[in-house]
């Protein structure tokens, strides 16, 4: 079983996001970078499938030099090899262009299963997984909460609004992770030591079958024209009273008469 996991490095969810001088990018100076939380689920899922079925787990990540950190983290969790797409020409690619590059790197090697996060918590695009599946011409299952891989078949549980759907397909296929799928393991100390010796291959645009004009700033179809913060709320109005019943009755009156939601 050849499993490829797509892993992105993103700002820690604790980060306070600040808007840059250009008004279209975020300030990255004080940010702590981590593995996208949904990609941790993806690495864990890959390791569990490998443990049951045998095979190799390849981590694929695209980004600048420091992206190696998340590849190493995944290798320390137990993945076998890493592939790092690192080329200044790809910086500034939008989700669709990123998917083209990632798909090109996957296509060049054997694969049975591709696993991605359902979304990266930086831009929240929810797009790269499905687009990679389209470019590879394989079936996809997004937002998966349970997965069973047996022989050449994959069965996935997907929670959609108002229902849980269980569906299956023959491999090769791609799925994206939703919370509930598993609890990602931590890298052990021996794991971290071993990871230092595991191979990481670096790819540039020249190694990939993607036309240069479709990536980077020139290839963008989505252009950010301005970033801003959500509107500030009015200062909180505290409601107090003699006892719980009194407070509750005042609050109910506000909900009914002032904001008219009840």
């Amino acid at each position, binding site marked *: 079983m050849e499993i490829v996991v797509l892993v992105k490095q993103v700002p820690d969810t604790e980060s306070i*996001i600040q808007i840059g001088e250009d008004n279209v990018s975020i300030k990255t100076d004080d940010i702590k970078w981590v593995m996208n939380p949904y990609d941790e689920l993806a690495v864990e899922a890959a390791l569990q499938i490998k443990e049951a079925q045998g095979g190799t787990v390849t981590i694929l990540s695209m980004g600048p030099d420091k992206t190696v950190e998340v590849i190493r983290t995944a290798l320390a969790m137990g993945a076998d090899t890493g592939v790092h797409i690192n080329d200044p020409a790809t910086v500034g690619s939008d989700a*669709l262009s990123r998917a083209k590059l990632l798909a090109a790197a996957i296509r060049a090697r054997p694969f049975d299963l591709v696993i991605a996060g359902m979304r990266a918590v930086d831009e929240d695009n929810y797009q790269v997984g499905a687009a990679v599946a389209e470019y590879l011409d394989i079936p996809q299952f997004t937002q998966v909460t349970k997965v069973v891989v047996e022989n050449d078949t994959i069965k996935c549980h997907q929670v959609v609004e*108002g229902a849980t*759907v269980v*569906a299956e*397909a023959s491999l090769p296929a791609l799925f994206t992770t939703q919370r509930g799928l598993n609890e990602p393991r931590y890298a052990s100390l021996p794991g971290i030591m071993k990871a230092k010796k595991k191979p990481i291959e670096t790819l540039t645009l020249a190694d990939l079958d993607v036309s240069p004009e479709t990536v980077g700033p020139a290839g963008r179809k989505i252009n950010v024209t301005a970033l801003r913060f959500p509107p500030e709320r009015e200062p*909180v109005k505290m409601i107090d009273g003699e006892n*719980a019943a009194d407070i509750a009755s005042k609050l109910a009156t506000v909900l009914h008469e002032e904001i008219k*939601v009840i």
Partner: protein
Amino acid sequence: MTQGVLVICEQRDGAFRKISFEAVSEGRRLADGLNTDLTALVLGGDIADIAGDLEACGPDKIWVADDPLLMDYRTESYTTVCAQAIQSASPQVVLIGASAQGKDLAARLAARLDAGLVMDCIAIRLEDGQLTYTRPMSGGKILADVSITGTPQLVAIRSNVMPITKSSHACTTETFDVQVDEPRTRVVDKKVESGDKVELTEAAIVVSGGRGTGGDYAAIEELASLVNGAVGASRSAVDEGWRPHSDQVGQTGKVVSPSLYVACGISGAIQHLAGMSTSKNIVAINKDAEAPIFAKADYGVVGDLFEIVPELTKAVRQIKE
């Protein structure tokens, strides 16, 4: 010539999801602004008689793609039919609801058509013929204004943000001929939730409980059901196993925008705020007057949720009677 607005509607088991009416209503406003036509596309199996339900929101045309192969939503078959519809209508803008299913479809369709997609759009602005879309990023910590190069412009709109409006237009309903192969994925089981459970992302009122509940959601559930709302939870509550993952609100959970969000026993961590800060009104009930949630709330009560929430339920019941 590229013109017109196409809305891809979502139905399940013969009933439209609320987001479909939101999308058609927004499509109508957009088509009026662009001075063009609005087409609503409905896909499914045995659904011909439901199409009329959309008419009130004002499409000029409804296309019904009715085929046994479209009975269950499957990414590949739906993508193929939507791509055919887009090729034959060549619309400028395509709206899709950003539900779980809508996100799955929109992303695959964007790659199929090599078209720009704005995911989770919360506002569309038309100025001097130029369309600007607003979408939250980093779980709602910031908002981005974006434009799309080329057409069709694919826009997946967030649930519960854009209003449903009525508009009377002469509307024709046509069959859209489906040419689709058997998809490579098969649905083997489907568990539909009981009809009276309100979906978290569609609810007008969300009552959420955090670690402060100690796992006892009885009072929260009672209030939620009285107001026909949904129950939400913080990640701590989910991690404790008190609530299912599908109830989690926040940066790694669901993003909700109800008319009223009631946070009970939730401290207001940055990741939680990311998932609910676009709610129209926020009420916080917390026994710690210093809890950060109060800085993001419109109304606050310092008190024990086990005393306040049942009394609030009583008071609301009185108003309703």
